[in-house]
Structures are given as C-alpha cells and as structure tokens.
C-alpha cells in the first residue's frame, strides 16, 4: 500500500478524539487494583487488632500519608511517561524528598536511642515478612498500572515500568500499614522502602517486555 493511500485510509472516517488527561485512564484499573490489594490484605493478613488505639498515634497516620503521597507522585510520573515528548517532570524530586525524609527520621531515631534498643527499632518483630508482604499486595496494583499503560504510549519502557512498580509498591505500603504493628521510624525507613523497591524493580524489568507498542 502506498503511503498516500495509507494516509487516506487513516483519515477516512476518523472519529473526533478528545484530549483527556491520561490519569483518567489509570483511574478505573487503579480503583480495581486498590480494591484487590485491600481485600488481599484483609483476607490474608488481617487489619491489626489494635487499630482503634493505633489511630490515636501520629505514627499511624504518617505510615499512611507518606506512602500515599509517594503513590500520588508516582502516578504523576507514570502519567507523564506515557505521553510521547513529556519528561518526568518534578515527581522524582518529590519521591526523592520523601525517601530522604524517611531516612533522616530513621537516622535521628536511631541516634537518639540507647545502643541496646537499636536492634529492636530496626528489626521490630516482622522484618522478615514485611517487604515481601508489601510486594505481594502490590501485584494487583502493578497489573492495574500496566493495564492502563498498555493503551498509552510510553517511550522509555524501563522507566515507565519502574514508575508503575513504584506506584503499586507505595500504594501497597499504605495498605499494608493497616495491618502492620510496627511503629518505629528505622523499621519503616528500611523494610517499607525495600518493600516498595521490589515491585519498582520488577516493574522496571517487565516494562521493556510488556509495554512495547
């Protein structure tokens, strides 16, 4: 087929297309992903028994708000990376800032604590399961983010896949916080961050493979 004929074919009967921000295409799948991850948490891990008392503590809310903010920044990053010609924008700065915040508060807590109390602050009771639980809960969200990206046009596939993983991991960390009894900043700064990085790395590995268009 000659190129001119292809052009005529493409233009013929082409319906009007309205620009809608790509974030709208993420909304549906992500809603399902959040539902799936929350259900998975409630059924397999269970909401922490002392949630009513925990809600009185600022750390309970920090554990929710920080990863949720990271999830929003990752969503912003992901929705930019699926539009050809758009750079990552300012989202990486926000994400870096949140990570720095988590690590600084972890370091300050550790330095202020007596040396004998430090292992408990770092390992808590659940360090062995925490990162893997977060990674597991992120799976429905990761599938949702990839589903949304499939209809869009990511140019840097590894980066786009990584942003999908970061989005899934941070949202899943916020959901996991409803189960997790740990409240020490060093624990969160290490194991939650690791739990978020697992799906991020997984997403980056899958991106070039699943997101080609």
């Amino acid at each position, binding site marked *: *087929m000659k190129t001119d004929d292809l052009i005529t074919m493409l233009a013929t009967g082409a319906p009007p297309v309205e620009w809608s921000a790509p974030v709208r295409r993420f909304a549906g799948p992500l809603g399902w992903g959040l539902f799936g991850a929350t259900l998975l948490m409630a059924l397999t891990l269970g909401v922490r028994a002392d949630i009513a008392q925990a809600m009185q503590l600022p750390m309970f809310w920090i554990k929710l708000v920080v990863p949720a903010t990271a999830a929003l920044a990752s969503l912003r990053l992901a929705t930019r990376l699926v539009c050809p010609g758009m750079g990552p924008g300012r989202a990486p700065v926000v994400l870096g800032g949140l990570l720095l915040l988590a690590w600084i508060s972890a370091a300050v807590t550790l330095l202020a604590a007596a040396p004998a109390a430090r292992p408990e602050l770092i390992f808590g009771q659940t360090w062995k399961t925490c990162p893997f639980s977060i990674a597991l809960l992120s799976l429905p969200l990761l599938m949702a983010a990839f589903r949304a990206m499939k209809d869009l046009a990511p*140019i840097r596939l590894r980066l786009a896949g990584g942003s999908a993983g970061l989005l899934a991991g941070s949202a899943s960390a916020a959901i996991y916080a409803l189960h997790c009894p740990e409240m020490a900043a060093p624990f969160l700064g290490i194991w939650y961050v690791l739990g978020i990085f697992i799906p991020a790395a997984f997403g980056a590995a899958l991106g070039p493979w699943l997101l080609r268009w």
Partner: protein
Amino acid sequence: MIASEARLRELLVCGLSGDRPAYHLFLQEMSTHLRAYFRHRLGGLPDDVEDLVQEVLLAVHIQRHTYDPAQPVTAWIHAIARYKMVDLLRRRGRHEAFNVPLDEESDLLESTDNDAGDARRDVIQLLEQLPDRQRLPIQHVKLDGLSVAEAARLTGMSQSAVKVGVHRGLKALAAKIGGRK
C-alpha cells in the same frame, strides 16, 4: 521552523476535533518530514525508510489521544519517531540501536521528502490476516468510506462493535508491522 510547528499544530488540533481534511493534510505533511528525517538517519537501511514512515503514521494515528494540545506537536511526533526508529534498529539487530545520536526535536521539521519509495510490507495484505470482526469494519469504514452505521448494517455488528473493530484492527495492524504479531 516555528511557522511549521504552528501550522502542524493547528492542522492536528482541527483534525482531532473532527476536521478530516485538516487531519489528512496533517498526516501528509508529517509524512514528508518523517521520510526526510528517517532517510537521513537510516543510511544503512534505505529499504526500511518507507516502512518506518508508514509505521509511525499508524502509531501517530492510534496514539493521537496521547497528544496534549498544550504541548508542541514537534516534541510529540519526534518522540514517537525516535521510539519507532530505535525499535526497528533493535529488531534488525543493529548495534546502532543502543547509540542513536541525540537530536533536537526541531530536526524533525528540518527538511521534507516527497519521494515516497515503496513499502515492503503491504498493509492490505496484513489486513487479510485480521479476524473478520476487525477486518470488515476497517474495510468498510476506512477503505470504502462508509459510515459506522452503514458498516454496522452491512456486517450485522453493532455500531460500537464496528468502532471497536476499527480501533483494535488498526492496533493489530501496527503490531504486525512492528513485528509484535
């Protein structure tokens, strides 16, 4: 250059809002820029130039919902063109794929080339490989120029199935052209 960007953008924005002659003109002008751009860069693969032009036009059409009207059209198409070029080089096993020199977005509009060579892959032949629910809508709506309602009556499909068939069929064609089945 700036005049070109402004003109292409106006054509595309009109095209997206349903002005088909403007959209046709947009694709046509774009194709001359793309041809010159690729011919300049695919020195080692001259036979692939026209195929790549067609592949990018199809991609631009399928992905036109990712164009933010607040964004320069040159930046948008340049990103798609480079993506498809790197993808092609990778498919051909070319090591250039890993070091395609960075260029400016404005390089895309630098020159034009009206000398359409022959594409080696024939879109019509690829169309034959699609299932009926995609092939017939494309045949009726995109090639014969029937309305969606007429195509629906002819095929016995619902109007929304015809629209979905066109959209999925074009995506499937693009995937075949891009060697992704």
